């Protein structure tokens, strides 16, 4: 296991209780755990190997805790991330405000990080449309403005979860292809911060 490669560092950000852990749980283990809510403590890391057009890509996913307690330390989790899945609860407008905070944070400190806005718990809207806490078009406008992809997912039903992570991986593969083209030959990408190794992460 030692030295397992991670191609893309992905960080999950968002207010507590929005469903980040559930999203990762659905994607990695294809399940939805019912039972009392267990807030994440610090952050949890999990690696997932997937395939994009015949190529394997390993996502190294950081599921961070939404609690404010860890805010001051959040940089260690998102530093060097290629993708950030910024989550908000579709039924809770305050969580969208918190999402905006994270977007600003990323724009300031991680220019190279792609942002994926993710509205969670869409199954709750299925039950009752009135539960939507924030207008879809407002979010869409915001996403366009910050050049982010927008997804609405449900970890309960699985809706759009795989698509979200698939998109993250595809974007990475495309970006790599593009970089190889523009940077010419002889560039060892692993030296350029685009690839991380478990065993070589001293700074």
């Amino acid at each position: 296991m030692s030295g397992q490669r991670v191609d893309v560092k992905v960080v999950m950000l968002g207010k507590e209780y929005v469903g980040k852990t559930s999203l990762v749980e659905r994607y990695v283990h294809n399940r939805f755990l019912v039972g009392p809510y267990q807030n994440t403590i610090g952050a949890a890391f999990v690696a997932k190997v997937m395939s994009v057009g015949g190529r394997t890509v390993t996502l190294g996913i950081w599921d961070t805790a939404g609690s404010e307690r860890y805010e001051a330390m959040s940089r260690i989790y998102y530093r060097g991330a290629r993708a950030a899945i910024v989550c908000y609860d579709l039924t809770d407008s305050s969580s969208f405000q918190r999402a905006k905070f994270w977007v600003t944070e990323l724009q300031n400190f991680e220019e190279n990080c792609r942002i994926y806005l993710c509205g969670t718990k869409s199954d709750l809207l299925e039950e009752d449309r009135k539960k939507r806490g924030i207008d879809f078009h407002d979010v869409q406008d915001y996403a366009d403005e910050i050049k982010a992809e927008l997804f609405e997912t449900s970890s309960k039903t699985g809706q759009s979860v795989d698509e979200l992570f698939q998109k993250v991986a595809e974007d990475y593969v495309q970006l790599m292809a593009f970089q190889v083209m523009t940077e010419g030959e002889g560039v060892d990408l692993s030296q350029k911060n685009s690839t991380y190794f478990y065993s070589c992460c001293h700074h």
Partner: protein
Amino acid sequence: MAADVHKKKGWEVPNGSLVPTDGQPMERSESPTPGLVQGTEPGAGQEGGMFVHTRSYEDLTSPEDGDVASRSPEEGRGDQADQTSMAHISKDFSELSTQLTGMALDLEEEMRLSQENEMDLSPQTARRDSARSEKEDEDVTMEAWRMHQKHVFVLSEAGKPVYSRYGSEEALSSTMGVMMALVSFLEAEKNAIRSIHADGYKVVFVRRSPLVLVAMARTRQSEQEIAHELLYIYYQILSLVTWTQLNHIFQQKQNYDLRRLLAGSERITDNLLDLMARDPSFLMGAARSLPMAAGLRDTVSTCLQQAKAKSLVFSILLSRNQLVSLVRRKDQFLHPIDLHLLFNLISSSSSFREGEAWTPICLPKFNSSGFFHAHISYLEQDLCLLLVSTDREDFFTISDCKHRFQERLRKRGVSHALLEALRTPFYSVSQVGIPDLRHFIYKSKSSGLFTSPEIEAPYVSEEEKQRLLELYQYLHSRAHNSSRPLKNIYFTGPSENLLAWVTSAFELYMCYSPLGTKAAAVSAVNKLMKWIRREEDRLFILTPQTY
């Protein structure tokens, strides 16, 4: 409570030669109780322990910022066996709490007048005012709420609620106001501990600026022990935010709402309180080691030792709050309190069961000003690996240590044996071969470890188990009473007899059926000590390792 208490003389010493031999080093011998010198008792590690040495919970009262503990003048003055070193105010607190609402100032004056040692809150001095605050939630006054064994509240010095064990802090805020009022006149000094002795209730206040912790308990614990638990709660909070940050925040803003920062941690604190009510580790100030063959443990420890990294300080392998192995940096010792906080953190959340957690954690007794980073992962269902690093950027290096450790276990072919050992985390007291013996706790002071058999019949229900622990707590408090400590106690109760023996090297608590005699109980001590000596390499960690 009928306690047959002896203080040294009158105690039938099972072996005439067991008097402490001051400072005289002794060899580990075949003799069942080879002297009471620390370091030679059964369970003592061969190359010293793994923990900071703590004699008892007194250590808890030393503040973490390095200040000399400022104690109340009353401390150490009590002369009755039942009285602890704290000030008592005898009054039915449940009555008091309803009376005080809205008239705290009045009372404060009266309190000042009578501030000499033991304050007497007689009904005349505390004027009756039954009008309760409008805000107070109905639920809070309900009988069910009052029936709880122990209420715990944490508030800021400004009176803002921080934590409440039962019921929402919001609903309780007026109760908290009352407590704040009480605290403000009970407390002349910071870091003091005071208590109100009420009929059926003990209300204990611990002030650790900028926080005040309050317990209302109907348990049989002494004030000292309740204060001890409150301090654990305080350390628990520090472990999440650090002492430095906590003080900084409140210096900036006196009425800061700490709940914002602690959001999501209530479960950890709840769990700690539950754990303290049933796990003797906290009472003993020690860790319980998982029984396993010495050879197996040594191999596992070596594997753990070899999976080291520059930033690693402690590598801890545990199974359900029992220690399997602990490897530490040569010059660094872990404090049992810090270890308990780590155990509690892990047992309080199922979120560690997936993936690898990487979380900042302050070990307040080690260093209350900064965070370590802990890598937490489960290797098996009940086997958790905890790697404590000084470098928050070092996740992948530490994660690699985990993989290397697992790899080594596999190569050495011990993974399977380790899993087997996890399947039998307890032994039966019947193995000792003392018919009347129901249960015991034995702590080796130099190793900071204790051993204890499974709690068996008649302590089957949760209530019964808790009652047994309470009996131990009672004996412990008598044995450690700071004004009148007792070395030997024989306690006869209606349902069981207990014996406690506390020396500079070990502590022993034994529980017998009520049918046995005192003479038999005393002679059983010898037999048990012999058995523990024989089994010590399985029950304890005799060869702790360092990187």
